């Protein structure tokens, strides 16, 4: 393992990531299920009906009230969680020459978020899987719950080199609605297609989270007579200097606000994570839905 996630995982120990709504029929797990059953946490009494299992009768209540009631509890189900990571060329920003000491680049943050959230989900016995579109094509790690899955995720993501202009939307289309999908991206690629795919998933019952990774250097680019070039669209070259900085910031802020609005409009959660933020804290924000 080339990246040390130990401190982050230690900080996330005990963090739970409950589903924001009741999940559909699934294997028993940690999440509240839409189905009502007789196992799990007590929720209410119901009059005994013909055919109920007599073992569910609350005998004490029967003794007190001379009436037969059955104890009902909520079912818990697991939620397979897919982490869909954007490994396009823009995620490699900033490169090693322009990296601020102590601040990782966007891809490192995306990996950390995926590993952190994956560890949290795996701790609740949820299967976790990874889909990643990068320079070398698509990497896929099917959801699994076995011991060591988090290490598998780490290993899979360590082998990915960001580059190219691969689209994320095709990765979302085949996903099942009974899943939780976490899209980790800088939202500078095929955002419209991704949002359309996410909207379809959420409409079908899936839970979606969008994690918008923003580099600190994108919020405050270096001032000087330099030519900024988009790594995914080389034809886009702009002179960014003191005069252009204010306009740039306004435009980028507007883009981020609009992106947040669109994500939430699809029924998905949205969290913006800056590269200079604390990863455990960011992950807590994601799981807590506080962004």
């Amino acid at each position, binding site marked *: 393992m080339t990246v040390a996630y130990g401190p982050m995982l230690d900080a996330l120990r005990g963090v739970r990531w409950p589903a924001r709504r009741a999940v559909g029929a699934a294997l028993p797990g940690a999440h509240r299920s839409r189905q009502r059953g007789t196992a799990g946490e007590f929720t209410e009494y119901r009059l005994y009906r013909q055919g109920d299992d007599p073992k569910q009768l609350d005998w004490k209540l029967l003794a007190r009230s001379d009436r037969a009631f059955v104890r009902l509890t909520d079912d818990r189900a697991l939620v397979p969680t897919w982490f869909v990571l954007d490994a396009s060329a823009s995620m490699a920003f900033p490169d090693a020459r*322009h990296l601020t000491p102590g601040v990782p680049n966007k891809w490192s943050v995306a990996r950390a978020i995926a590993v952190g959230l994956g560890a949290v989900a795996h701790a609740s016995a949820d299967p976790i899987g990874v889909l990643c579109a990068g320079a070398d094509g698509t990497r896929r790690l099917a959801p699994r719950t076995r011991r060591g899955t988090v290490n598998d995720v780490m290993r899979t993501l360590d082998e990915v080199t960001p580059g190219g202009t691969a689209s994320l939307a095709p990765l979302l289309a085949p996903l099942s609605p009974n899943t939780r999908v976490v899209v980790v991206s800088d939202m500078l690629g095929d955002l419209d297609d991704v949002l359309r795919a996410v909207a379809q998933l959420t409409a079908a019952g899936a839970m979606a989270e969008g994690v918008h990774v923003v*580099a600190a250097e*994108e919020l405050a680019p270096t001032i000087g007579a330099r*030519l900024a*070039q988009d*790594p995914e669209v080389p034809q886009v070259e702009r002179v960014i200097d003191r005069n252009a900085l204010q306009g740039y910031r306004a435009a980028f802020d507007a883009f981020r606000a609009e992106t947040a609005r669109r994500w939430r409009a699809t029924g998905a959660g949205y969290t913006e994570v800056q590269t200079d933020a604390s990863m455990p804290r960011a992950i807590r924000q994601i799981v807590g839905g506080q962004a």
Partner: protein
Amino acid sequence: MISFLAPWVLGVAALAAAAVTLLHFLSVRRPPTYVLPTARFVTARDARAVSRSARPSDLLLLLLRVLAVLAAGVALAGPRWSSSRESVAHIVVADPSWHGDSASMMGRVLGDANQSGVVRVAWLDSTGGMRDELGAAIPAAWHEAGVLLRDVPSLDSVALHVFAPRGGSDSYRGWSAWRSGWPGRVAVHVPGDSAAATPRTASTSAVLVRERRDDDVVRAAIALQTGRASVGDGADSSVVLSGDAGTGRVRIEWPASGAPTGWTARSDTAGALVAGNQALVQPWIRRAAAPEMAGLTRVIARWGDGLPAAVETTNADGCLRTVAVAVPNGSDVLNTSAGQAFVRMLLAPCGEAAGARAALPQALLADSGGARALATTTALRRAFPPSTGVVPAWLPSVLLGVAIALLLLELALRSGTPAEPERA
């Protein structure tokens, strides 16, 4: 050697060339690129920036531009090319009485060292020249100075030599006023015996009187002055005096009646005859009018109304004095002191007629003591209007043509050179 009418234009051209060179140290180039995924949010505009570089760019273009600017500057500065390397020129203003002494005159100008140099000589007329007023030399000197400044632009300074008339001038009153305008030293040269209180009579070997009666008063007056009996041959009405070779032969044509050769007949009267500082006052009958004075002819006696009565013409032998004064026979006017002085004047060696003149004042000679520097061409040029004479006249056109050709070549080079990826 080249000089310029407007040297300041060269300075402007040099500044412009320096500015062009400095601009070539600034290069307009594309700024360095760096990756920014959010570049799309920057407003698009011209992606070029000005930066300084340690070495000038486009050396060939720089050379063409500098040469074009300098060529145009030289053309507009009014170049004057002179193959002459003379820095000092001599202006000689001389009286015609120095004609026979040109060698010694040039010797005085150029000195014992036998130096060479540009020398312009202006011979003033006997009439209206330095003989009447010595100061007439200065305007002539200014005229010659203008010619020198035009023809020899490489000159630094001008030396003025004034050769005063033999026998002095009638007036020196105008000298100071004219002299003050000349911005340098004036060397006034005098003949060895130019100052004469009384005119000398020509040394004669014979006096020939033609067609004059023995009792002619003119013959008598001449005999009285020369101490020699005159000899008559009846050939013409003239008095011939053979003078020494050193002073030149003096010939006097003094017809007893009628008009002298070349004069026109007239008949009127005059109240006085003036020669030098002598005046013969009596009712004179004028029988001739003088012709146009030209060349080496000068008036040596005038009637009271200013018309010439006697003139002296310098010739190869010496001089011819023509006298149109009809002395009545039996008159004793020539025996008076004024009349004797008149006759002595006519008998004086060539150039010394018109009686006794004032000697050249020593103050004038003192001016040639060298206390003042030679007149500089800079000071002389201030007296003349700005010269538009470019020498040679075709030079500015050629230089401007060269400048235009260089600029066209620069344009062609610039248009033909493909844009470098890093430089505009």
